[in-house]
């Protein structure tokens, strides 16, 4: 009770509700006056009385201080006073404060953005009720695999999905969802859409609700219906309440809107989804008719919801038991099912063996990267504060001489750092949300970015990062600043900022460290940039700009294969008739997936899994590919010949040219038979193997992933009756020409049945994630360099200013300009050089480590790109050189005037 009362009273005192400063002074003055009165009363003269009273009372200021300390909470008051003082001293040196703030805010902002994105991508659960129970299923295929992949090998076929859904006990339900890109055709205009083809139970499994209309039910399986996202409803329909039952043309088919998803739900993948279509209804229209029946086609990511009381581990055991049954139908195949908590992240990326290590690796890399960036900014801030601390030595010495304890001065400096840190955190959070907002506006993931902008976790993280940085950058300068030898400083006999101060050595270390880190980031940025240019360039031998893929789809509801074959044949004739256009045919066009098949050479005992495609004689000439050795197919070739790419030649025969004339053995395609078979209804007689002669070796292309070369691939001639399911590859000067040709053959229905895609657009779409990543790293690299450059500039400028007298004397005594410049630059150049060497060493070590750990994919084919290293060094040299040279020259020019003038 007493404690509570006292605390309240002191709190009131702190807030100046009782005993204002003036009252305390008045009370103490009254005491002195009463004392004087008393002394006069006792017979002293007034003058004498005043003297005696002053002597007896002692220091009024000290008494007032003791009085005030009792009034409020002294620790808080000291702290508040420190804050006031810190703000005044920060305001006094605005440029330095601004530099500090910018440097730290950049660091905090970057780290927070990275952490936020990493957290969101890796750990953020789905925005659905009870999201912790939603899981993703992925499979790892091993053994004898004969599989087609359109997406990722870890995905499932529709028959597999049906089997899991009907057989599982551990999951209350299983749904399939495949994301695709499409366009909404409205009034002659096309706008891009992010689509998801889902099984009808998808929404029910996720327990999301509609805001208008309804979501899918089982009866929608084959209906031409669509559920649109809240975003599309807002953007495309101005939230029209009558949107339900409106018709939408998506690509070549019409769908009726049945409902609008709730605002918080934007799908289960990284990309926001605009519209959901029923899988079985939409896939055939979208050219995926074959996908539906093919039991060996990986194209469907699956999600599930754990049944009540079932753990992840038991769900996995259950799924594996089902997989084992499926393996029984395909002798030699070994499937492992992985059940992981669903997050908005492409599950397929991490399903290969050793992925856990990769995830940890990526996490560690992101953390290291973020830490390094923050460290650069922090060390810069420390350097700036050190420079400032040196300039304020006289002030600190004065305070220490007046009786302040070192602890108080230290506390004061830390308070200053903390204030800067908190301000930087605020600016950093603003930066972060800005970056995320820009990201949301420019990338197709608005909800993904927007959902966590005001996140408390983000704010706490930014504050923690900033305060951590403040402790780091504030402590060292405070230690140096308070370790002052009072007398020389007070007498003005300081050495200024020369090499004799220990702080200067620390500063040079900081410069070296920054230069090193900037170099590492620059080299990574340069390597990524080069890789990007390589990916988008035509240097892989293919001029993608003039290439178009022409694919014939089944018209909606039209199962008449005859019509389709007829159309294909007429197109073939039309293309053949145009001598000015090169035309080729392939089962799988570039950037449209890849076939996977087992194969072996005569020398190999076991089959190896490689890529596979069926192409005609025109395929390679149309792409503009000349064989490295031998020849490509011509009209005479049949199943007895194969063409392999250089990668496969190296893998099977260790040498590109040695492959020529060798024989390659592969199992016959069972696709046709399986299409008619129900899994489990028939037994497999075992694969019939076919052996063919290698007649040519072609260069390794880049048709699966824009950022890396294809794996080992072999090509077989396409059978004459097998062209139905193919893509035509046409080289034409423009899309219009191809379109008119197609229109001429297919007539008015062309748009409904034949799609024309620019391969260059496909390539660009494939390269997009990598381009974004590369741009981000390039931006971060330059930002870091900018920060380092600013730091170097500041330090050199400061040291030069401090050595102004020395320089002035040199100039006055007639030292040549170059010599003075050398004098000024000497130590900076040494620090920068040391940093460059250190950075180079880190780059090389990190490059070697990265390529052995993660593989060379991130940085392209070469982790240690000499050109990238050279480019990084050059940019570094220019920027640091300027940062050191500019202030040195300015001072040199001004040196004589200002020194002798002052």
């Amino acid at each position: 009770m007493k404690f509570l009362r006292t605390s309240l009273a002191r709190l009131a005192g702190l807030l100046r509700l009782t005993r204002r400063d003036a009252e305390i002074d008045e009370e103490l003055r009254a005491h002195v006056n009463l004392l004087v009165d008393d002394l006069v009363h006792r017979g002293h003269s007034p003058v004498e009385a005043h003297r005696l009273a002053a002597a007896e009372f002692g220091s009024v200021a000290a008494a007032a201080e003791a009085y005030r300390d009792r009034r409020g909470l002294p620790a808080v008051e000291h702290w508040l006073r420190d804050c006031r003082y810190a703000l005044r001293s920060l305001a006094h040196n605005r440029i330095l404060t601004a530099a500090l703030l910018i440097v730290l805010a950049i660091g905090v902002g970057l780290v927070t953005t990275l952490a936020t994105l990493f957290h969101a991508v890796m750990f953020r659960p789905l925005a659905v009720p009870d999201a912790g129970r939603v899981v993703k299923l992925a499979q790892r295929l091993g053994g004898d695999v004969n599989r087609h992949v359109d997406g990722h090998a870890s995905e499932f076929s529709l028959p597999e999905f049906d089997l899991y859904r009907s057989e599982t006990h551990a999951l209350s339900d299983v749904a399939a969802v495949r994301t695709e890109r499409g366009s909404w055709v409205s009034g002659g205009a096309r706008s891009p859409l992010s689509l998801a083809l889902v099984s009808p139970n998808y929404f029910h499994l996720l327990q999301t609700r509609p805001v208008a209309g309804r979501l899918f039910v089982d009866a929608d399986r084959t209906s031409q219906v669509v559920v649109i996202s809240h975003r599309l409803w807002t953007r495309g329909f101005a939230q029209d309440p009558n949107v339900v039952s409106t018709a939408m043309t998506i690509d070549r088919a019409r769908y009726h809107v049945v409902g609008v998803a709730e605002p918080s739900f934007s799908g289960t993948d990284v990309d926001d989804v605009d519209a959901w279509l029923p899988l079985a209804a939409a896939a055939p229209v979208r050219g995926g008719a074959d996908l539906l029946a093919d039991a060996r086609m990986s194209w469907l990511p699956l999600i599930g919801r754990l049944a009540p009381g079932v753990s992840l581990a038991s769900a996995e055991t259950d799924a594996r038991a089902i997989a084992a049954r499926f393996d029984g139908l395909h002798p030699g195949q070994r499937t492992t099912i992985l059940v992981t908590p669903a997050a908005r992240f492409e599950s397929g990326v991490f399903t290969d063996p050793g992925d856990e290590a990769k995830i940890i690796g990526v996490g560690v890399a992101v953390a290291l990267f973020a830490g390094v960036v923050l460290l650069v900014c922090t060390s810069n801030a420390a350097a700036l504060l050190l420079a400032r601390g040196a300039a304020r030595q006289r002030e600190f010495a004065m305070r220490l001489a007046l009786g302040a304890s070192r602890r108080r001065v230290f506390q004061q400096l830390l308070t200053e750092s903390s204030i800067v840190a908190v301000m930087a955190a605020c600016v950093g959070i603003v930066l972060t949300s800005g970056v995320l907002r820009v990201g949301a506006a420019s990338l197709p993931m608005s909800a993904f970015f927007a959902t966590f902008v005001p996140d408390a976790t983000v704010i706490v993280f930014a504050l923690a990062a900033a305060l951590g940085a403040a402790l780091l950058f504030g402590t060292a300068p405070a230690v140096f600043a308070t370790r002052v030898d009072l007398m020389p400083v007070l007498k003005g006999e300081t050495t200024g900022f020369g090499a004799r101060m220990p702080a200067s050595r620390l500063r040079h270390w900081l410069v070296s460290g920054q230069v090193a880190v900037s170099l590492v980031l620059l080299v990574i940025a340069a390597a990524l940039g080069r890789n990007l240019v390589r990916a988008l360039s035509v240097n892989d031998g293919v001029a993608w700009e003039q290439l178009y893929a022409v694919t014939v789809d089944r018209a909606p509801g039209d199962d008449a294969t005859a019509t389709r074959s007829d159309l294909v044949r007429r197109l073939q004739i039309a293309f053949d008739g145009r001598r000015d256009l090169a035309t080729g045919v392939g089962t799988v066009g570039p950037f449209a997936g890849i076939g996977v098949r087992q194969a072996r050479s005569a020398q190999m005992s076991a089959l190896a899994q490689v890529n596979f495609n069926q192409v005609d004689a025109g395929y390679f000439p149309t792409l503009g590919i000349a064989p490295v050795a031998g020849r490509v197919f011509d009209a005479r070739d049949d199943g007895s010949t194969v063409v392999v790419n250089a990668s496969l030649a190296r893998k099977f025969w260790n040498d590109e040219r040695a492959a020529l004339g060798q024989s390659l053995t592969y199992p016959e395609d069972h696709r046709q038979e399986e299409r008619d078979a129900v899994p489990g209804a028939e037994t497999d007689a075992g694969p019939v193997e076919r052996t063919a002669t290698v007649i040519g070796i072609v260069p390794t292309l880049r048709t699966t992933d824009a950022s890396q070369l294809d794996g080992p691939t072999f090509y077989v001639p396409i059978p004459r009756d097998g062209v139905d399911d193919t893509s035509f590859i046409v080289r034409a000067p423009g899309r219009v020409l191809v379109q008119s040709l197609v229109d001429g053959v297919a007539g008015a229905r062309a748009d409904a049945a034949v799609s024309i895609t620019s391969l260059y657009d496909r390539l660009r779409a494939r390269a997009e994630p990598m381009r974004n990543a590369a741009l981000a790293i390039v931006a971060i690299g330059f930002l870091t360099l900018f920060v380092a450059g600013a730091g170097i500039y500041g330090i050199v400028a400061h040291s030069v200013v401090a050595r102004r007298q020395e320089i002035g004397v040199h100039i006055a005594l007639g030292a040549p300009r170059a010599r003075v410049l050398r004098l000024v630059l000497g130590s900076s150049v040494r620090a920068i050089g040391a940093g460059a060497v250190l950075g180079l060493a880190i780059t090389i070590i990190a490059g070697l480590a990265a390529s052995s750990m993660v593989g060379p994919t991130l940085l392209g084919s070469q982790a240690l790109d000499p050109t990238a290293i050279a480019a990084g060094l050059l940019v570094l040299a220019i920027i640091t050189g300027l940062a050191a040279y500019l202030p040195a020259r300015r001072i040199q020019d001004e040196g004589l005037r200002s020194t002798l003038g002052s």
Partner: protein
Amino acid sequence: MSLRPRAPRPAPKKTDVWQGTLALMVLTTLEALGPLHGFGIARRIEQTSGHRLSINPGTLYPILLKLEQEGATTSDWGVSANGRRARFYELTRTGRALLARESTDWRATSDIIARFLAAAGIK
């Protein structure tokens, strides 16, 4: 000699007074004389001690404030006998209770100490 708990000096002529004791002296003074200003309290304590104690304002005023914060006293501005404006302190009911408790404690303590001294034959 003044009250400086943090920097003790060599034994003076007058006796040092420590804080808890001073608070008790303030309470007894206010009980005896009624509302009184800081100077009056200091003078009274010095007189009562036979000028063996000297009260430092730097010690007195924080204690006056502490007693007020604990609710033992209230204070208000008033005018002294010789026409000076000063802050007067007055005992509250809580203060009287505190005084009663503290004086009992103090008596008990001094009684015990006296017994020890007597037992050791020290006068």
